[in-house]
């Protein structure tokens, strides 16, 4: 056939050539360069021959060279065969480019690894703690319930059994409701005793969550009966306890255990693995309420409550329904329910509390770090693209389409991001471990944190975003690249678009960095305020010993007398240790647990008579109740404001409960200033007599004999609640923990106190002997964690942004060396040159500060919930952050600017 179809030999030759072109692309490029240069020379000579000036001849030749008609841009790069080959080529090209610029490549990969790593680590935590649904069936239908009382300024109170029973019987929106109580108990089985977290739960609790036993059953349902049919001394144990303490004995059901050396319980079931709700509970005991309730069971708001909404019911509907029930209860039981209403929140959010906003903020900040890293790498990439303009122009001259070039850049960006992403996964993995190691242990669900597929996927996503950002920026920056630039002098080979893109990128980095810096300065200042907050007591030199004394130590009869005597002896015994100045007992140690609260009223309130509460709910007060021994205020260094403290004489001769007819002796009480302010805004509480609802078996009423300064007992960032202190000698209803003040450092005393406790009573669980300082530190762990993490993100961002500014100014200087040389030659002083360069370098910085300032205002309001005693628009934080950023930028700009100031005019002019 005599047509133009190539013969097999031609084809083979063509294919071989193509293969060579692919394999030896650099050689092919050089070849092409030479050929084009030759063409240009010939054209120039031709122009000279036709009578042009040499300069004009060259310009005309260049013009003709650059005058590529529109359609060439559409012509595919002729060397390309298909997209896969394109990709391979692009990758090879990218790898070669990376190898040619190792410093750039390493810096870019490091920046991206850090950015993506930080993001991935925080995401791993947020994913498990905040985003992943609770591991129960249909968790979106689970709610937590609270009672609240606006009149008594109680936002969130635990729930009374009465309210619970009525909700259970009447709610049409809640499928089931359960009460929960939690405490530690001493469990003895097989000759061993150990402390366990014990939850007392309604029988409906397990079905409500949708969890099952692996062996045995759970408690008999309450079933709306007036009186419950089940037995109280039954216990369900966790899978872990079953495995670790009972060797996974399949015949466990029916075995008995001793609780608190006192009660015998029968094991009836083992829960499914990993189930430990609430608060890492290890055993569950029944908490049952039939329909028949005593009046007190409407008063005591003791328990946590959870519910499951019926399918299809929204939170708003359920809340509305609960509020309706609450208002009916107000009418039916005014004495206990007036002013009280009900509200609820999704269970997962309720479990997280304040941790959720903190973690989301940290995720946002980590995202900022990643974007800054991307911006930084993009800036570097633009600079490199500019430097590589010659290469680019040659490729355009060869007919490489714009799309083709764009793809090449994006491929390079993606390749860079992929390397950064791989580094990011590694950095993320280690950072997540680090994060878990330093995270406050009271963040819920931390044990569920895993570096799983979703987390890796998030890293991949971040990598993709980084790749596109890093790849597109140089493409934008080099959009006016034409072949015209190719033959221009290399040192001047920069386009306006590229430098503008760089400025925008630096501006964006600065803006994001400012947002980060402001947020972290606000958080750090908040933490500083928190740390230096006057807690109302002095923790230095104080050791706290949280004790669990088994109830079995005080058998009837005369249980209260025995307890009083036991703690008298224990306190005296510990007080004899060398170095101990004073020892006191208290029912709760500040910052460790909820202080129990109760109702009380003035004995002269209308309707109040003996143990009978006043008729008006407004006259029923609510206060935290703490029982202490006389040395407590002295040991904790809580100053007395008025009146007197407790003394050993504040003690009843007989503390045993008697039948209700016999009058109890009157007792004494001390209140805090918060209580004095709340209930005696204008009067003097001293000498007033009050009755406490659950005090009846000890004292008929109590006279207030003193007022002490406020103590932040619940948490560091909440002001003191109204609190009433009762002397243990008049109220030995519960066991005590100890506080010990010594002249030695508290840490030195830990082991001697622990030994003394064991020697006193081997049944005491002495695990809770801790310096009070450590307890305060633990209470500050969450804000410290948030502030420290935000601070390190901000530092990282500042460094990265500083590198960005350093880069752009260095680039400016390199580009303008000649101009600077002329200025110096014309008599410009080095200082004015320095300033000129810095000023130009700072332009994008100031732009970024302006934009970032606005964004930071929004951010500050978004993190308001995490701030303490610092206004979101705290001027010092904003000015400080901006100043820090500008100072960093000036420093980063000064280094290359100094180089500019030292330019030798002769040298610079000769260089071209």
């Amino acid at each position: 056939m005599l047509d133009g179809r190539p013969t097999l030999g031609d084809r083979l030759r063509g294919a071989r050539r193509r293969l060579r072109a692919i394999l030896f692309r650099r050689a092919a490029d050089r070849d092409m360069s030479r050929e084009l240069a030759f063409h240009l020379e010939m054209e120039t000579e031709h122009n000279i021959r036709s009578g042009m000036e040499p300069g004009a001849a060259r310009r005309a030749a260049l013009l003709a060279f650059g005058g590529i008609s529109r359609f060439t841009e559409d012509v595919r790069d002729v060397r390309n065969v298909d997209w896969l080959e394109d990709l391979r080529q692009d990758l090879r090209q990218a790898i070669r480019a990376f190898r040619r610029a190792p410093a750039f490549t390493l810096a870019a990969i490091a920046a991206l690894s850090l950015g993506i790593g930080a993001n991935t680590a925080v995401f791993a935590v947020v994913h498990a703690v905040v985003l992943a649904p609770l591991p129960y069936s249909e968790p979106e239908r689970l709610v937590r319930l609270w009672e609240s009382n606006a009149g008594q300024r109680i936002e969130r109170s635990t729930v009374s059994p009465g309210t619970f029973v009525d909700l259970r019987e009447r709610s049409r929106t809640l499928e089931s409701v359960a009460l929960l109580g939690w405490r530690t108990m001493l469990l003895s089985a097989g000759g061993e005793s150990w402390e366990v977290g014990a939850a007392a739960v309604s029988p409906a609790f397990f079905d409500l969550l949708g969890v099952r036993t692996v062996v045995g059953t759970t408690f008999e349902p309450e079933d709306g009966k007036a009186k419950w049919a089940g037995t109280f001394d039954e216990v369900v144990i966790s899978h872990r306890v079953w495995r670790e303490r009972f060797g996974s004995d399949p015949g466990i059901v029916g075995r008995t255990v001793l609780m608190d050396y006192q009660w015998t319980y029968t094991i009836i079931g083992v829960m499914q693995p990993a189930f430990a709700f609430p608060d890492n509970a290890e055993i569950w005991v029944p908490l049952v309420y039939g329909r028949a309730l005593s009046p007190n069971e409407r008063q005591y708001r003791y328990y946590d409550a959870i519910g499951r909404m019926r399918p299809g019911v929204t939170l708003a509907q359920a809340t509305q329904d609960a509020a309706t029930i609450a208002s009916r209860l107000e009418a039916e039981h005014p004495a206990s329910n007036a002013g009280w209403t009900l509200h609820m929140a999704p269970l997962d959010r309720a479990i997280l509390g304040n941790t959720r906003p903190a973690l989301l903020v940290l995720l946002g900040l980590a995202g900022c770090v990643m974007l800054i890293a991307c911006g930084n790498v993009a800036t570097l990439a633009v600079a490199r693209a500019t430097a590589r303009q010659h290469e680019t122009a040659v490729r355009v001259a060869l007919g490489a389409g714009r799309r083709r070039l764009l793809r090449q850049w994006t491929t390079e960006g993606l390749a860079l991001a992929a390397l950064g992403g791989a580094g990011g996964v590694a950095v993320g993995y280690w950072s997540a471990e680090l994060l878990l190691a330093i995270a406050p242990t009271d963040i819920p669900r931390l044990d569920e944190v895993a570096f799983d597929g979703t987390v890796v996927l998030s890293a991949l996503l971040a990598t993709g975003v980084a790749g596109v950002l890093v790849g597109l920026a140089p493409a934008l920056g080099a959009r006016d690249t034409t072949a015209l630039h190719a033959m221009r002098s290399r040192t001047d080979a920069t386009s306006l678009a590229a430098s503008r893109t760089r400025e925008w990128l630096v501006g964006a980095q600065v803006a994001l960095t400012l947002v980060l810096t402001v947020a972290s300065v606000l958080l750090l200042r908040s933490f500083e305020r928190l740390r230096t907050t006057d807690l109302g007591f002095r923790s230095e030199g104080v050791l706290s010993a949280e004790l669990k004394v088994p109830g079995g130590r005080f058998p009837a009869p005369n249980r209260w007398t025995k307890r009083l005597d036991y703690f008298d002896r224990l306190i005296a015994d510990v007080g004899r240790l060398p170095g101990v100045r004073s020892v006191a007992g208290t029912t709760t140690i500040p910052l460790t647990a909820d202080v129990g609260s109760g109702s009380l009223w003035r004995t002269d309130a209308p309707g109040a008579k003996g143990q009978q509460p006043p008729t008006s709910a407004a006259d029923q007060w609510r206060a935290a109740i703490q029982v202490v021994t006389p040395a407590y205020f002295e040991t904790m260094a809580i100053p007395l404001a008025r009146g007197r403290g407790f003394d050993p004489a504040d003690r009843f001769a007989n503390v045993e409960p008697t039948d209700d007819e016999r009058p109890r002796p009157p007792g004494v009480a001390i209140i805090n200033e918060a209580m004095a302010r709340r209930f005696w805004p204008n009067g003097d509480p001293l000498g007033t007599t009050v009755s406490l609802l659950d005090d009846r078996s000890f004292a008929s009423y109590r006279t207030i004999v003193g007022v002490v300064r406020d103590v932040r007992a619940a948490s560091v960032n909440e002001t003191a609640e109204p609190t009433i202190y009762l002397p243990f000698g008049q109220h030995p209803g519960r066991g005590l923990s100890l506080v010990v003040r010594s002249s030695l450092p508290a840490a030195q005393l830990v082991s001697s106190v622990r030994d003394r406790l064991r020697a006193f009573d081997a049944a005491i669980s002495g695990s809770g002997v801790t310096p009070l300082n450590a307890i305060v530190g633990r209470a500050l762990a969450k804000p410290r964690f948030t502030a420290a993490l935000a601070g390190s993100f901000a530092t990282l961002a500042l460094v990265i942004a500083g590198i960005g500014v350093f880069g752009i100014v260095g680039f400016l200087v390199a580009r303008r060396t000649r101009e600077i040389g002329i200025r110096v030659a014309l008599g410009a002083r080095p200082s004015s040159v320095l300033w000129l360069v810095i000023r130009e370098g700072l332009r994008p910085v100031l732009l970024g500060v302006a934009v970032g300032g606005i964004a930071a205002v929004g951010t500050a309001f978004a993190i308001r919930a995490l701030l303490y005693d610092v206004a979101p628009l705290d001027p010092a934080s904003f000015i400080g952050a901006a100043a820090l950023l500008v100072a960093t930028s000036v420093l980063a700009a000064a280094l290359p600017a100094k180089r500019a100031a030292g330019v030798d005019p002769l040298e610079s002019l000769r260089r071209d």
Partner: protein
Amino acid sequence: MAREQSDLLRGTLDLLILRTLSASPLHGWALSQSIQQQSENLLRVGQGSLYPALQRLEQQGWIESEWRTTDQNRPAKYYTLTASGRRALTTETKNWRQYVRAVDLILEGA
């Protein structure tokens, strides 16, 4: 539309290159000059089209390239027509003539 036009032009340019090289091997610049002169300056070939076209033709096996020295003793890349290039020239010329005739017929008939 733009693509069709460029395909048309590309095909034409290939034909012109093949025809010009059929006389003697030439380097790129001489090739463009030759086309320009032969067409009495009506056709100018920009480098942006010329070199990709040369690449393409070389890959198709219709032309071959080789570095030689010019009359002035400078290295330049010379392109030579191959046997299959010569066959292709014949076919493409025939196609072109048919095409022109067809267009002419329509233009005159209208």
